[in-house]
């Protein structure tokens, strides 16, 4: 392990980014104001599916302050690219503004640019679009049925891809000889990300130089620049700078390249003026990439001892009307390979149909594929426990993969080789903290009095920091999955760190500084972390898939290795000692055995730049760049326990207690990791109990405002009990795993299982999410009849 001395690693250090946020001095995209700035408003489709007969902008152009109106083919740019290919995939063309047809409600049809936001909005209202409405289909499974409306002539049956993983023959054999088969149909409902900061962009084209600067709410500014410059705008990357300043949460939804920033960039270039667009929340609902939306048939085969012998999965994944940037990846490689979970499952076969429908595009949303797999497994395990008359905890224990922590990976039948894992201790600890035995006794006592308490357990695995690049490439990735880092030492010894990772709440300015300051033995105040600007930072991949610490952090460690190596050479030269005779400690190199003969970090840094006395042939300066490509994913895991009480009269659910024990490897800053776990839990509970992106059969989004889409609120949630086990990842120098998505992955099934457990006396074996009072009341009422 490359970690030298840890003064800061592992400490709950207060965040350095906070002072600007708590005083209202954050700089988000909507805060950018440029001289001569104009404002954009979009005209969007009110139809789920329609032919565009005519766009009449005459009246709009006459509105005071309107500068321009563009529709469809006016915008001379390439279509929005899809960044992940699967075998046999059919990729529909996705123009920046709809051409010929609209295929979902909210699809951008025209843009209006005005001198003021009001002028743009007035203009947008004055644009008259004539549509010929067509029948549409919103449901992924219905879209597959014979006679379903077709979105694209060239994509029969709306089937974008068919993808499988695992082995059909061995899985069939497992089912043929099973002692028990448990079947579980389930819907993983559509979710709408709703970062509290709406998406926004400001594009500024400088006619004199031809340089385009784009401020955009992006989790990965370089990916934005690459895709936009190379595929959409057809300009050299040198002519485009993407800045993603403070960003108010992403949860996946800010990974992708969207219509709006493309059209706004083109408009700025065309008009020669800066153009700003900020989404209204309704636009976020309609056009931010949604998450989940699977309809699945799962079946699990068991032997006489209650051991799993096979798993069969058939999923219709709703991709929306077009392929968002990484859409095909989510229900394939981020889903199927997770289906072994923490269990030893000898045979798995999974089939996925990627379906196009008249709905907003679906892509990665916190967890992305992994929550879908985990929910499926954990719900099925609970159902199996009930069918096998076993305690759900006992069933899980029987099926855990035995511990493997010595660096030998565990190979699943669905491609993944897990890096390290020891699943029983996390479950044991979670049960202990949750008071499981007592809770079961309380539950029995309460039931006798007509009160319905439920206890739900979920044990999960996650895969973070997708890697390595060569494997990803062979599986269809249009991008590498490494990360860049650059460490620049200044002459007086302070250090600027440039990372390709992007923080939109994760606190990298603190955690990365902890890592760097530790490794160099200097105070954190001497370290500055820069992210989110393609003009300053080497090409990087950004933040998604809980990759920043394990991939981005490791890239920095690689830089520091190079810096320390050069520093050692300079120190040895100055001390007239052999390199191998030096110790590096507390920010100084000293001669082994004579600690007084030493050169401090600052002296060495200065000499690197003075270059008056450095080893012959050595280049002056002290900085390093690294591109770190991990050899594997990291695989965090854990166990969560939820306790709920259901009011059988009203169907209302109260989440009484929530316990999370996660293993995310070594932890740089426990305060920050706990915070991410808390937030993840709330989001997962949201899916279990409240959140649902509902499309009517006609393709209208019925939950298109925060009045209709139930977001988790403070008064619906308890405080959480969190703890950790620590199994360092052997694959990266920091021993870290991902921590950003574990909460979301584990909490949905834990809460769902708890509610279904509470309803056991009514004979309820499953309800689809979200578990609203209405659904529960109906189920209870049906049981009473």
């Amino acid at each position, binding site marked *: 392990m490359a970690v030298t001395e840890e003064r800061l690693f592992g400490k709950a250090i207060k965040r350095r980014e906070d002072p600007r946020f*708590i005083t209202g001095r954050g700089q988000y995209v909507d*805060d950018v104001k440029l001289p001569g700035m104009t404002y954009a408003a979009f005209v969007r489709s009110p139809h789920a599916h329609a032919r565009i007969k005519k766009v009449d902008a005459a009246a709009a152009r006459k509105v005071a302050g309107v500068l321009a109106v563009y529709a469809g083919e006016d915008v001379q740019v390439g279509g929005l690219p899809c960044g992940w290919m699967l075998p046999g995939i059919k990729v529909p063309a996705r123009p920046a503004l709809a051409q010929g047809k609209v295929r979902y409600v909210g699809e951008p049809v025209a843009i209006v640019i005005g001198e003021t936001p009001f002028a743009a909005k007035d203009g947008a209202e004055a644009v008259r679009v004539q549509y010929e409405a067509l029948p549409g289909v919103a449901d992924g499974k219905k879209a597959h049925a014979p006679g379903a409306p077709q979105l694209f002539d060239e994509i029969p049956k709306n089937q974008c891809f068919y993808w499988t993983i695992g082995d059909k023959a061995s899985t069939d054999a497992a089912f043929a000889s099973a002692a028990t088969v448990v079947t579980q149909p389930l819907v993983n409902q559509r979710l709408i990300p709703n970062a509290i900061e709406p998406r926004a962009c400001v594009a500024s084209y400088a006619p004199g130089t031809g340089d385009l600067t784009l401020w955009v709410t992006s989790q990965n500014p370089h990916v934005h620049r690459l895709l936009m410059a190379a595929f959409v705008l057809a300009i050299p990357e040198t002519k485009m700078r993407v800045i993603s300043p*403070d960003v108010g949460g992403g949860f996946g939804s800010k990974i992708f390249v969207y219509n709006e920033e493309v059209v706004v960039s083109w408009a700025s270039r065309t008009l020669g003026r800066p153009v700003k667009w900020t989404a209204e*929340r309704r636009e976020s609902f309609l056009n931010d990439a949604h998450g989940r939306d699977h309809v699945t048939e799962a079946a699990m085969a068991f032997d006489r001892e209650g051991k799993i012998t096979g798993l069969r999965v058939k999923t219709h994944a709703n991709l929306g009307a077009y392929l968002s940037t990484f859409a095909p990846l989510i229900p394939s490689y981020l889903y199927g390979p997770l289906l072994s979970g923490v269990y030893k499952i000898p045979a798995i076969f999974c089939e996925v149909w990627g379906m196009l429908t008249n709905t907003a595009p679906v892509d990665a949303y916190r967890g992305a594929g992994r929550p879908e797999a985990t929910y499926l497994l954990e719900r099925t395990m609970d159902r199996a426990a009930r069918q096998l008359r076993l305690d759900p905890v006992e069933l899980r224990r029987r099926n855990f993969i035995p511990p493997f922590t010595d660096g030998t990976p565990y190979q699943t039948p669905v491609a993944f080789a897990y890096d390290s894992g020891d699943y029983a201790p996390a479950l044991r600890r979670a049960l202990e903290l949750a008071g499981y035995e007592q809770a079961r006794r309380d539950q029995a006592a309460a039931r006798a009095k007509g009160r319905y308490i439920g206890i739900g357990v979920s044990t999960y695995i996650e895969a973070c920091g997708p890697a390595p690049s060569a494997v990803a490439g062979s599986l269809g990735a249009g991008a590498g999955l490494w990360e860049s880092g650059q460490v620049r030492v200044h002459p007086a010894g302070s250090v600027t760190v440039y990372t390709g990772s992007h923080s939109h709440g994760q606190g990298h300015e603190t955690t990365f500084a902890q890592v760097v300051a530790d490794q160099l033995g200097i105070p954190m105040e001497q370290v500055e972390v820069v992210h989110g600007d393609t003009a300053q930072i080497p090409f990087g991949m950004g933040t998604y898939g809980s990759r920043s610490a394990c991939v981005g952090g490791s890239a920095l460690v690689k830089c520091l290795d190079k810096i320390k190596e050069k520093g050692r050479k300079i120190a040895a030269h100055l001390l007239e000692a052999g390199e191998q005779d030096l110790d590096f400690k507390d920010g100084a190199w000293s001669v082994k055995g004579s600690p007084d003969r030493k050169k401090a970090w600052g002296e060495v840094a200065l000499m690197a730049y003075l270059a008056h006395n450095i080893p012959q042939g050595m280049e002056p300066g002290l900085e390093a760049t690294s591109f770190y490509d991990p050899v594997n994913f990291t695989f965090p895991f854990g166990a969560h326990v939820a306790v709920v009480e259901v009011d059988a009269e009203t169907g209302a659910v109260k989440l009484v207690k929530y316990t999370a024990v996660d293993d995310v490897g070594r932890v740089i800053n426990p305060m920050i990791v706990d915070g991410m776990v808390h*937030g993840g839990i709330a*989001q997962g509970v949201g899916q279990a109990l409240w959140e649902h992106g509902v499309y009517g059969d006609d393709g209208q989004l019925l939950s298109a405002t925060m009045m209709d889409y139930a*977001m988790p609120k*403070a008064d619906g*949630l308890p*405080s959480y009990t969190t703890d950790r086990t620590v199994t360092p990842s052997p694959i990266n120098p920091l021993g870290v795993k991902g921590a950003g998505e574990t909460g979301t992955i584990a909490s949905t099934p834990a809460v769902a299982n708890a509610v279904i457990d509470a309803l056991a006396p009514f004979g309820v074996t499953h309800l689809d999410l979200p578990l609203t009072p209405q659904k529960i009341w109906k189920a209870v009422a049906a049981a009473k009849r």
Partner: protein
Amino acid sequence: MKLPVKMTINGQTHSHEVEPRLLLVHYIREVIGLTGTHVGCDTSQCGACTILLDGQAVKACTLFAVQADGARIMTIEGLAKNGELHPIQMGFWEKHGLQCGFCTPGMIMAAYQLLERYPKPSEEQIRHQLEGNLCRCTGYHNIVKAIQWAADNMPAKR
């Protein structure tokens, strides 16, 4: 048509002619240039725009600027005095009550009134009072802790 408005924001008096349809939050952000007050929704749900208007926590997206004519307003930028953070701000920093920071100004302003109403609030009171402020990052756990910290560290009222 434009109408005159005059109000005091963080101790400074401002007067402008504005369109009647201009929302107070946009007046504060765009006209005055105080961008700490955020906009997170269009249906008065999220609370990112919360400010104090004549001492009351209100959602600045729910009022027109002209409705605030003559009002005394405090935004997040006005909370720290002479470079000294207010205990609520310190609480959010101490207890990691923020991640992306976007909901934070509104949360802090809502907490300001909360603590006036309930100087020693229970967890339940805090959660109930924050019902109009959404946070997608923190799961609220540390926001509750931050406000409890502030309550414990509030200087005694003179």
